[in-house]
């Protein structure tokens, strides 16, 4: 695993003090073991000795460590934050790996081999050649109902998941529907209940039967879990209140897509707003390939 050294000096930066992708080889080995175990037991939270990273907890320390252990010098790396490539978190992490690993980076989902994400799954379907790394703030789906870690671990091991439905029950009794709109709990291969990280529930169906490897890293909570390719992932629900992956009932004001997840952007102080794709790469690609003149009529249609 020392091939990375040369790559870094090629960059002409003074990064010789760092190993390839920042972490030392022993740490990466430890993380890879956790990843392999997580892949072997889909949805199970594997404890690992999370390291201090040069960024605050909550900024993706877990995801960064998983990416660091996953990256090879030949990889092409993409980072998205809420679907966007150009937000602070994404820019920082992308630059971090440009400097410490010297890997190629891209904005295009299709070109990337490793994608680190915060709170979204890309709209472009993933392939078997890709790895999706999620940043996870709180890996335990039962945490807000059962504060004891000892108890939640026991509940996982004994498959006692009634409590998860109590949360959904509370939603319906208070709001008339399941109001949980992100971090929506899922059951993996009929066994472990898992927190899919705070992705919108619109993305939940994409978790299931996905050709790519999906890795989840929680740095502060020191847990790694994973979904191997083509894993069956079911969102929890009630028989009379089925799971509905919801999004804003609108088309994107830029690319006119009706199928992608939308951000609502406030444009002025007078109540002006627009809906745009949260996946910036998807939106840009659509606009680039669209026939000229398509944008404006759709915009008026969308606003009417």
């Amino acid at each position: 695993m020392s091939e990375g050294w040369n790559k870094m000096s090629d960059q002409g930066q003074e990064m010789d003090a760092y190993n390839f992708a920042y972490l030392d080889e022993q740490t990466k080995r430890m993380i890879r073991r956790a990843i392999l175990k997580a892949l072997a037991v889909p949805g199970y939270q594997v404890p690992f000795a999370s390291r201090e990273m040069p960024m605050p907890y909550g900024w993706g320390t877990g995801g960064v460590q998983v990416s660091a252990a996953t990256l090879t010098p030949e990889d092409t790396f993409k980072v998205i934050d809420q679907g966007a490539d150009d937000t602070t978190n994404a820019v920082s992490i992308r630059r971090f790996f440009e400097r410490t690993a010297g890997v190629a980076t891209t904005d295009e989902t299709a070109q990337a081999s490793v994608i680190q994400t915060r709170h979204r799954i890309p709209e472009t379907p993933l392939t078997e050649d890709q790895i999706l790394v999620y940043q996870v703030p709180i890996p335990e789906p039962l945490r807000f109902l059962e504060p004891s870690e000892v108890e939640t671990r026991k509940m996982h091991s004994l498959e006692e998941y009634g409590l998860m439905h109590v949360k959904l029950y509370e939603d319906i009794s208070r709001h008339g529907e399941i109001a949980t709109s992100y971090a929506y709990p899922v059951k993996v291969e009929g066994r472990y209940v898992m927190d899919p990280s705070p992705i919108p529930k619109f993305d939940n169906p994409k978790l299931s039967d996905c050709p790519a490897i999906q890795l989840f890293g929680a740095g502060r909570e020191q847990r790694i879990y994973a979904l191997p390719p083509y894993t069956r992932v079911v969102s929890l629900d009630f028989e009379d209140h089925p799971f509905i992956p919801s999004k804003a009932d609108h088309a994107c004001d830029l690319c006119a897509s009706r199928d992608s997840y939308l951000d609502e952007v406030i444009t002025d102080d007078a109540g002006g707003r627009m809906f745009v794709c949260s996946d910036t790469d998807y939106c840009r690609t659509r606009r680039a390939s669209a026939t000229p003149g398509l944008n404006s009529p759709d915009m008026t249609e969308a606003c009417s």
Partner: protein
Amino acid sequence: MTPLLQVRDISRSYGPRIGCADVSFELYPGEVMGIVGESGSGKSTLLGCLAGQLAPDAGEVLFDTRAEGPRDTLKMSEPERRMLGRTDWAFVHQHARDGLRMGVSAGGNVGERLMAVGERHYGEIRTQALDWLGRVEIPDDRVDDRPRAFSGGMQQRLQIARNLVTGPRLVFMDEPTGGLDVSVQARLLDLLRGLVREMGLSAIIVTHDLAVVRLLADRLMVMKDGRVVEGGLTDQVLDDPQHEYTQLLVSSVLQV
């Protein structure tokens, strides 16, 4: 008739100190057993051992399971015992906050056991929760309130509803009326007596309040220093106490 619960020589010590020692008894279906004694006499330790919350050092607890007849619950695997704890057993704590989820609405509290045994129909859960709130005299419009907003007596009634919703056969109660004022106690006892008769429940009630056992219990065990010093029919023990400690206990009750 097969006893619902057979307890044989249960002992539990905390280091050199005795928690409870050599306790044996049988409980038949529909029967209510009272365990009385002063603080530190081992009542709660015994109850904990019976309900699978504490591991006794020695002894057997045979429960007449629906599927396989009498089985030693202490030798069951943990998933089996916890399943029993959600279905055929119920545990009413002295402090309602120990037995309730304070951050979850009353309906959710009652529904939790239903969801834990696989009920996945919201409307069905809701109906049953409302039905049970009615049975323990909590108005329908409080179903979405959290237990924090309830009075002590209501919390205790909610805890009972939450426990009985899956139709258990055996209820463990640890000082169910402790900390409630007398008029609320009276209503709660009335309610409990009604439910026990109506559902044909068996119950083991630990208390230091002799009035509670007089009203609820068919049989009585008196404990002192971890051992059972006297046992028998409730009226018999209370009206004609034989052991000196029981005599002291009975004569200590203030007459109004």
